[in-house]
């Protein structure tokens, strides 16, 4: 179970309506359906992941997030979730804006590029960081818009988005120990809970 899912689950109201952008294999929606009785849909473009959703009985709709959410009405969902997909989008800020139009609230998780490992990798080797968490080379990575916690905080301020909750999680030992003191240096994954 992904550690960010537990946090998300706590922020989701029981029996609410959820839209999951880039829903992957449908694990989050399945969990929320089971534990919180939410109804909802996942949007995904990867054929193998769509198949996994269908096998699990999770509602999945093939839709490219880069083409926007124009087919969804204002405020048609309680919460719009997007886990670990922000960095893959062509225009992340526009998608977040759309999420807050379609949902009353939104929850976004992304990998923190300011984490010490990434900083160390770049500083020491002079090359773009490649890690177990982000295993791609610069030329073939789907992750085209990296940011740090601090960057995302700034984006929220500039757009007047209200941060309801902000949490960082880490699965490694030093990360867990220090993430609360220096989140931008030790947190691996950021989880933001936003509203308009």
């Amino acid at each position, binding site marked *: 179970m992904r550690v960010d899912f537990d946090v998300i689950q706590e922020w989701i109201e029981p029996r609410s309506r959820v839209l999951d952008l880039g829903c992957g294999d449908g694990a989050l929606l399945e969990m929320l359906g089971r534990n919180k009785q939410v109804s909802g849909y996942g949007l995904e473009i990867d054929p193998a992941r769509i198949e996994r959703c269908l096998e699990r009985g999770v509602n999945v709709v*093939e839709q490219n997030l880069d083409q926007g959410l124009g087919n969804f009405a204002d405020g048609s969902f309680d919460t719009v979730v997007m886990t670990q997909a922000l960095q893959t989008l062509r225009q992340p800020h526009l998608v977040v804006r759309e999420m807050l139009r379609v949902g009353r609230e939104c929850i976004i998780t992304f990998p923190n590029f300011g984490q010490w490992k990434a900083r160390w990798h770049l500083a020491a080797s002079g090359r773009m960081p490649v890690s177990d968490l982000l295993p791609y080379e610069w030329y073939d990575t789907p992750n085209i818009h990296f940011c740090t916690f601090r960057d995302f905080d700034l984006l929220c301020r500039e757009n007047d988005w209200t941060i309801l909750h902000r949490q960082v999680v880490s699965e490694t030992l030093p990360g867990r120990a220090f993430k609360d003191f220096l989140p931008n240096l030790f947190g691996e994954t950021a989880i933001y809970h936003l509203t308009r």
Partner: protein
Amino acid sequence: MGGGICISLPGSLKLAAPPPGVAIPAPARRVVPVCSPSESALSTEKISSSLSARPHDGGDAPAVPATAASEGSVGIVVPQRHTFSEPLELACGRTLRDYTLVYETYGELNAERSNAVLICHALSGHHHAAGRHSPDDKRPGWWDNYIGPGKPIDTDRFFVVSLNNLGGCHGSTGPADTNPETGKPWGPDFPMLRVRDWVHSQARLADLLGIDQWAAVIGGSLGGMQAMRWALEYPDRLRHCVVIASAMKLSAQNIAFNETARQAITSDPDFCGGRYLEQGRLPRRGLAVARMIGHITYLSDDGLGRKFGRELRSGSFRLGEEEEVEFQVQSYLRYQGDSFSGSFDPNTYILMTRALDYFDLAREYGDDPVAAFSHARCRFLLVSFTSDWRFAPERSREIADALMHANLPVSYAEIESAMGHDAFLLPNERYRRVFAAYMNGVAAECSDGGDR
């Protein structure tokens, strides 16, 4: 719209294709089977897995002998028929006093009667969806790629019912049958049917078979329209609705193609105002042209280009030569038209295309698809194909959007294919996997006892 549905026509299939590269003398090249759309799919789309070993014969390859026990086949099937004597009130206001439906079933109905699946056919389809009628049949049923043991509509798990719709020409009551009131063929006097009439007659068939609730109602193209109408007319009688390459209503362009096809039929001098059977005539040329028009639109530019390009069947462009040139695609289209016009009733073609044109899912719900679907209670799977321009992916996305707004469970997949609208009938690995993954869940519910 069932473009690729191949109706086996023993007569015209007896003509063997010449060896490649052999020019055919002009008089003999009138009906030359170049290939069927299914075969063109095999050569233009790379199909992996077991589906490539399906038992179709090939025009370009030596015919594979059909064996009843071939892998994944339901084997030899026998059509059944039932005459319903309770009058059926139609949407047009008229009533059919009695009528016959021809159908086939595959697989076993379980003790709870919870594993039944209804297959709704498209424009030129019929009840013979899977298996063969005899070991010598060159082709299996029109959806044999997807119905059979171990296939997405798994006959080891489902009891599959496939019928010829009312107004059809493959055994169910239609315009070519005798009107009991006049003793003459119905012809143009056969009542105009709408999709809902088919759905009501299918519900009677369900009653006959003791099926209170379908595990799924499944259809492609016009069949998908029937499946959606089922979800609105009989919300408690289906748990899943599978709508493939379909739409909530036809576009103006689509209606225009259908009208051109109808005009081709009705302007044939042998049409005789639709009373050709009484006159002992048959507007074959008109129907063949109608089919050719349809066929072009069921394929994509890319698909036709990949298969035929500008290859010549005969003649040449050499300077100083006057011999008439024939492109491969011409011969292919003519074969499609000719074989179809020998096996399909022109009045049925007119009736079916009109039903397509008239269908508008949300008309009676204030033209609001969300309001329409708010009557449904089943789960939905929608599938579309990227190169399908008659039932484009946008049409399926509109259905998905309406269903999401109505807060109904829906999944949607857009399958990459170069085969146009015909893709819904043809082997395609991703399509198969999506279909199988969904139907697997439907089957699992059936063994849990049926009801949601």
